[in-house]
Every structure is written in C-alpha cells, then in structure tokens.
C-alpha cells in the first residue's frame, strides 16, 4: 500500500494556488518533500492531516481519505509543525505525557512512552526540567518527541532543522534517519534545503508553485556518492592521463579533476600520483555528489553545506 497517494490535488487560496493538480504516489520510507518557501509543502501536510480542505482532486494517507477519516489519520500520524513552540513552564516529561494522552494513549502507557520518546531524542537525563530552560535544539527534540510518543505509522516533519546551528542540524538529521530506518516509521521531511534532506531520504518529491517537479527514489536519480576534487596548479592533463592509467574513472571539470571516492585508497592513489609527477597540488577535498544539479533549473535554494 502506498503511504500517500494524491491525484490532481488542488488547493486555492484567495490570491494564490497553493497546490495545482499535484499527482504523486509515495512509498513508505524516508521521503524528502523539497521546494522553495511557499511551494505548497505546508499546505500539503495540513491537507494530509485533514486540517485543511482540498478544493479538488483525491488524496489517500495510509489508505484513508483525510476529508472523511481525518480523526483516524491523525491518531496514526505524528506531526512536527514548522512554527510550533512549547509551554515554557511545563516539565518536558509532563508535556510529552500529556500529548501522548491527547493521542489516545492510556495514562500509564503515555507516561512510559513519553520517557521512551524523550530517551530516543536524547533528552532522557533532562526530561524533568522545565522546557523554558531548554536550548533551541532541545526544544526541537521535545517537539519531535511529542510527535513520536504515540508510536505513529507516519511522521510529518515540517522544516525540522529550522533555527538550529550546524551541529544541531546534523544531530536532528541523524535522529530522523534513525527513526526511518531503525524504528520502522515512515517519515516525510519538508525542507527548502535540498542538500540537507537528500542525505537521509530514500525518495524525494520536489514541488514548485504547487506543481510536481520530480518524484523518484534517490537511487534512481543519482548514485549517492562522494567525489574527490583535485586541482593542481599545472600539469592537469598529465595527472588526468596518469589517473586514467591507474584505471580511475576521472572526469575533468574545468581546472578540477573529479575522482569518485572508493575508499581511503583513492586518497593514497591520488597523493602518490601527484608525488610521482611532482606536481604542485592546489587542493584536494571531498565533495558530495549532490542532487542539486538535477534541479538546477528549479528555483530551489541550494544547500549551505
């Protein structure tokens, strides 16, 4: 059963069309929903939760129609909104317990699962502190914990890394990846940063102005791989020939040579080649071979990293 199916899904606001005939099927797993701000990501999520009505088209979430089964969907979905904040004077464990009860867990189960959820997001030691004293990153984790407390089948995360510093972003992305792979919960991650979600997602849906740009499994879009970028001040052709001679599939891009990274030995091979040819090495660094090129024409903001 597909996780989410939409067919000609349309939502119009008085001045803008937020979703314009969107048709896409989403298989379970970690799914990235990317698009610039205002592309219609949050609108899609709210329609999936049954919080907004669609104007036209069909939609199934977990096999149910949000317009009629919104309650049943919301019982099995965890939602982390973009701008949510938390009651500062409540203790994190109490708050997550309360939210578990609001999702239909009996009291004792809610208490137990709140502790578990806070442990999984890495706040076990701090769970009896007031939320007001938490850092932004910790608050985001509490928001994630409340979405996880009732063991949903699907997590909808709207810009989960917003407002986090680079280390916080890394930690949050790592956490989401764990939830999707180890916990067996499907995750839809909304982001305007393609580079951020492509690393953890198994499939990607790119929308722009409410229209589908592309939806596919990441593996079929591009091999996820790293490349080494080598640049020498002179003798680029020489090095290219030498590396070809070693059987490395080197590509030339202007002054740079791109070598697919197979392991640590790739580094060694390049260093040995540069040393053997006695070339002045300008730089040698590792770069992620990203999806950004695939969306080069689309008005997406590129990743900072």
């Amino acid at each position: 059963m597909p996780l989410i199916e939409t067919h000609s899904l349309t939502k119009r606001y008085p001045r803008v069309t937020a979703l314009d005939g969107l048709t896409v099927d989403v298989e379970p797993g970690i799914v990235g929903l990317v698009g610039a701000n205002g592309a219609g990501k949050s609108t899609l999520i709210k329609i999936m939760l049954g919080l907004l009505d669609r104007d036209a088209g069909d939609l199934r979430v977990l096999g149910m129609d949000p317009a009629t089964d919104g309650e049943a969907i919301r019982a099995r979905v965890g939602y982390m909104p973009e701008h949510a904040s938390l009651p500062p004077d409540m203790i994190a464990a109490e708050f997550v317990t309360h939210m578990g009860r609001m999702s239909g867990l009996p009291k004792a189960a809610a208490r137990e699962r709140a502790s578990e959820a806070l442990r999984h997001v890495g706040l076990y030691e701090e769970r009896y502190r007031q939320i007001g004293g938490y850092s932004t990153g910790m608050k985001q984790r509490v928001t994630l914990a409340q979405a996880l407390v009732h063991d949903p089948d699907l997590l909808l995360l709207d810009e989960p890394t917003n407002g986090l510093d680079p280390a916080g972003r890394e930690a949050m992305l790592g956490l989401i990846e764990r939830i999707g792979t180890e916990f067996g919960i499907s995750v839809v991650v909304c982001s305007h940063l393609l580079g951020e979600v492509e690393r953890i997602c198994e499939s990607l849906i790119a929308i722009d102005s409410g229209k589908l740009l592309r939806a596919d499994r990441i593996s079929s879009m591009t091999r996820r791989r790293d490349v080494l970028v080598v640049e020498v001040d002179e003798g680029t052709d020489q090095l290219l020939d030498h590396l070809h001679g070693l059987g490395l599939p080197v590509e030339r891009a202007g002054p740079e040579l791109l070598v697919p990274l197979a392991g640590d030995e790739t580094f060694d091979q390049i260093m040995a080649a540069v040393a053997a040819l006695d070339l002045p090495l300008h730089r040698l660094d590792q770069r992620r071979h990203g999806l950004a090129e695939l969306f080069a024409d689309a008005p997406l903001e590129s990743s900072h990293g």
Partner: protein
Amino acid sequence: MAELTAGAGGVRPAGRTPGGVIHDIGYQRYTGPRLGRSRVVLALFGHSLRTAYGLGRTAKAKVFPGILVVLGVAIAVVAVAIRTQTGEVEVNYLQFVDTMSVPLLLFLAVIAPELVCRDLRSRVLPLYFSRPLRRSDYALAKLAATLSAAFLLLAGPLLLMLLGGLFAQTGGAHGAWHEITDFLGGLGYAALTAIVWGAFALPLAALTSRRAIAAVVIAIGFVVTTPVVGVLMSLGGTTARQLASLANPVSLVSGLEAWIYRTDVQDIGGFGPVYLLVAVALVAVSTAVLLLRYRKVAA
C-alpha cells in the same frame, strides 16, 4: 544478576552472551489500546481541571487557588461553628454562595486565562489539532473545566456545611431531610452561578493570549454594565427596576436566585422566566463565541 551467579556450568538461554544479559534498548512499537476521541476529550478536561487548581504545576501556581480554597473552607467552618455554638443559622447555603461571589469572580479572572491563554501564547494548539480531537472538542473541554473548577470552589465548602449542619440540627430524620434539601438547593445555586459566570468569562479570556490582559478584560466584563443596572434601579419605573438586573451577569444570577428560591435579594416582579431566558441566551452566545474563536485560531 542471576545470569552471573548461574555459574560456568549453567545452561544459558539461547542467544544470550556469557557475562550478562544484553538489554534491548531499541525502539518498541506500541501495541496497547488506543482510546477514542471522547476519552481524549475527557483526559483534556481532567488535565485542565487539575491545572485550574495548580495541580501538577509549580508551587507558585498553587498559591492563588489555594488561598481561595482555604477562604471558602474557613467561611464554612465559621458558619458551622456559629451554628453549633448558638443554634442560629447565620449563613445558610444560598448566603454562602453569595458571600463567595467576589472570591469566585477573582478565581475566574485568574483560571480562565490560565486555561486558554497559555496554549494560545505558546502556540501549542497545532500540536492539539494534529491529534484526533477537534477544535470544538478542545474549546468545550476547556469550558467544562472552567465551569467545574468554579463549581468545586463552592461545592466543597457547601458539603462541609452540610456535614456540620447534620450534626447541629435537632429535628431528627425530618430535620436531616430538610437540611439535605437546603443543601441541594445551595448546590444548584452554586452550579447556576458557576455556569453563567464561567461561560461568560472564558471567551473573554480566549480573546487574547496574554494572561494579565485577559484577567483585566474579564474583570471589566463583569463590572462594565453595573452603572446601567444602577441607573435603571434609581431612575426607572417599577418595570425598569425589576428588569434592570438583566444587564449584568452578576445581578442576573441574583435575579434568578430571587425567582427560583423565592428570596428577597432582589425584586424582579413576575419576570423570573425572562431572567432564565436571558441567562440561557448568555451562556449560549458565550459558548458560540468561544467555538467561533477556536475555529479561527491558526493551526
């Protein structure tokens, strides 16, 4: 550590490594019961009612409700003491509710903002609305909690007065029965007051996300029409005087008391049913405003 004391020759369960048990601390799926929407609303009601009295919250949040509870109980204890000492009923059940009117108004001005403004201010509502319960469920659970909290503030001391009264009365079984009906009358009046005032106060609180402002708005809401009542009382004819109390939620409830319990707190002539109608309308309109407010609030 039974595993370690089992000894080297002991048979270990398959899959366990020597030297101890590896605890599975991975993610566990939840297989227990999931309660329906009505139970969720009930849980929200219970949580809100506890919040109103500061239960499950910081010590600071317990101070104000605590003072009012102690005040109510103290009045009841004094009333019972006077009655057992002198045999005279100085404060009856209805009079107790009237005595508590200012504390009850203060209580509402504090707890109504407490119950709704905190969630509005911390923008936590999207987390509620993405769960099974509906917007109207949320609003009605908060309303029920406000009314119940107000009622309990009066009902507790009334019960104390009943227990004292049953010991103090000398009329035997007949007297006891009389005492109980008086108590039930007082309880009904307490419920009436809690419903009309609570329903009036909560939508006022929900208009703003700032608790202090909400408290002031509620206070103003309760007193803003008192001059109207005053002017009509002093200048109007008999009919105007008898209808004047409709203009304010506090005097409206006294008017109802006068009609239902035939007390002489107010002269409302034969307009009792009008008072009832206006009270019902006030509760209905207030509830509608509250529901409308939560239909508009962003999710």
